[in-house]
């Protein structure tokens, strides 16, 4: 089967892989690069567990044709730590007990990061809007909203 060569930046590192026609970015990240932080939740664009940032913007990796990220920058949860330290959002999620099963957490964090990147001091309504594409079945959303607000007011949330 003919494969297409694909190069892009993955969490700041250049990567090169070969993909089959039609491969989505989620499969490319998980199966070809080995970054398991984006999760499969539906493959339909409905749950947000596979969310990543492409050139800084929130995208659903399951609906992204892998080869369309050629030459672009892809950021996943695996890349948001600041050196050995947790990103303020990760700390805030932990402090607010904003994860139970943890499966939606990577996508939630990426959606929250996309928000804080362009709006460091969001209102509650803006936080609600920012995570609205991400399904959580455990928490009832309240702790997640609180965590994002806490990370923002901590003032350390930067790109």
């Amino acid at each position, binding site marked *: 089967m003919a494969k297409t060569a694909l190069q892009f930046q993955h969490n700041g590192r250049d990567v090169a892989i070969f993909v*089959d026609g*039609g491969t989505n970015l989620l499969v490319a990240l*998980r*199966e070809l690069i*080995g970054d*398991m*932080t*984006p*999760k*499969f*939740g*539906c*493959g*339909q664009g*409905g*749950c947000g*567990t596979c969310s990543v940032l492409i050139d800084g913007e929130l995208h659903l990796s399951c609906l992204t044709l892998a080869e369309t990220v050629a030459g672009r920058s892809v950021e*996943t*949860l*695996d890349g948001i*730590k600041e050196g050995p330290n*947790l990103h303020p959002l*990760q*700390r805030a*999620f*932990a402090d607010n*007990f904003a*994860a*139970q*099963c*943890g*499966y*939606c*957490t*990577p996508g939630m*964090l990426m959606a929250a990061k996309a928000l804080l990147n362009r709006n460091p001091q969001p209102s509650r309504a803006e936080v609600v809007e920012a995570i609205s594409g991400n*399904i*959580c*079945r*455990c928490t009832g959303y309240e702790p997640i909203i609180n965590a994002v607000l806490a990370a923002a007011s901590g003032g350390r949330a930067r790109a």
Partner: protein
Amino acid sequence: MLELRKDLFADERDDNLKEIGKGTQRQDMLGHVTGTSPYFDDHKLQGMLHLKVVRSAQSHARLRRIDTSEAERSQGVRRVIRASDVPRNLNTLLSLINFGKDDEPSLAVDKVRYKGEPIVAIVADSPREAYEAIAKVKIDYEVLPAVFDVEDALKSGAPVVNEVYPKNTFTYHETYDRQQLRFGDADRALATADHVLEQRYQMSPIEHAPTETNGSIAAPDTNGRYIVYTSTQALFFSVDTCAKILDVPSNTFHFIGGTVGGGFGGKVDTLTEPLCILGAMLTGRPVRYVFGREEEMQYGPPRGAERIYIKDGVMRDGRVVARKVRAYFDSGAYTRLSSYAAVKCAAHLPGPYTIPNVHGDVYCVFTNRTPATAMRGFGVTAMDFAIECQMDKLAHLVGMDPMEFRILNAYRDGDMKAHRREAKNTALIECVQVAAEKAKWPLREDFKRMSSRKDGGGARAAVTPTPRETHAPPPAPTQQRTTYDRAPAATREPPPPPPSSPPPSSPPVRPAAPSHGATRFSSVFGTRRR
């Protein structure tokens, strides 16, 4: 906002503990926020194959012919698995604990009983190639009449959904078509109650919708074993179910799981592991079988629907004196766990209240829909909905505050419960009082002073004399009958009498040992436990 009411029941507790009672961070939180918690699908294995199943397009049909020849030749296909490839192609989950008969194949044999039932499994190099092969499987169906309503399923002449249970009801104690609860004389108490209220409640099915769908990865391991990564909620249920279906010793398997992306009851059924392991056995390669979202929503088991009829007798002073319940659990086409839910539901009657006369009939009914399974609050959620709506209506009927009405009828320490065990360690009254306080809902002083620990037992500890079943028609009503606040709608007609045969007088025989040789968790079939 959460407040700990340490002032209540303080005399029953030692609060001088070091780790217990502290809001310690979760052990798994760091893994969750860094995306490193290992779910079953996070295991990358060399040369992984992908398994997809061909699902029935019909709700009820005979399988006249299954032609997989073209699919077998399809590009990338490593193996087509048919029903005859499954070593023991008939199982029921609770056979491991001797409850119920084997009634469900891994792959349909001669008949399909619900839309979406697996018929053939395809193992291919890629999901795409598996989908292409699925399209090439030709199935010739002879469509049969289907039944979707639990009460229709019990009518004579209804289509037989599952031949293992030809009356479309699960069999309890080898003989009964339902689980009964009998405590006191509900009919007599209803005849003398000031008001009688009979209502119908319905809960539709509910999907667990975990963000991680059901799935597993199975791979040949060293020394003839198989390693299985799984989303199961019940590891040894899955191990032993697979051992039974695949007819191998359970230590053939090394199951790894324990970190699961939500379950809520939807990952108890060992849905994917048997075919996934079989795929690995037949190809010698790692195989991944993961539900898509639509599969999870439509063909993964839901919390089954329940239909509940409640008939209550209440006195003008607010005492509920009788509760008669008839409930139907819609199990779908196979048993899974609804059989047990009915028992749990019967034991739950009449809710957390001391009612001297309780009569319950709970049916587990088969229909031509996706088999139902456990879900958070299993056997109780819908019954609580029915009971608590009913309690609200009764309070309204007798003109009592709904909070005080519940406190009045609440069970207390020392009371006899309808399943004939003494109530202990109760706290319903205190919950009502605290909730009222939180919601600024005024309660009268005497209701504020009532306690779960006071005024229970005594006359309330007695088992009301329970008549033997006569199966005579109930006495004609002599008192006021209320069909609450509105004319009954067309769908709210009084239910027909239950289509039951009189229960036998001889005690149920112990079941014979099951024919399969698989491990069972328990061969104990009942010991008295107080």
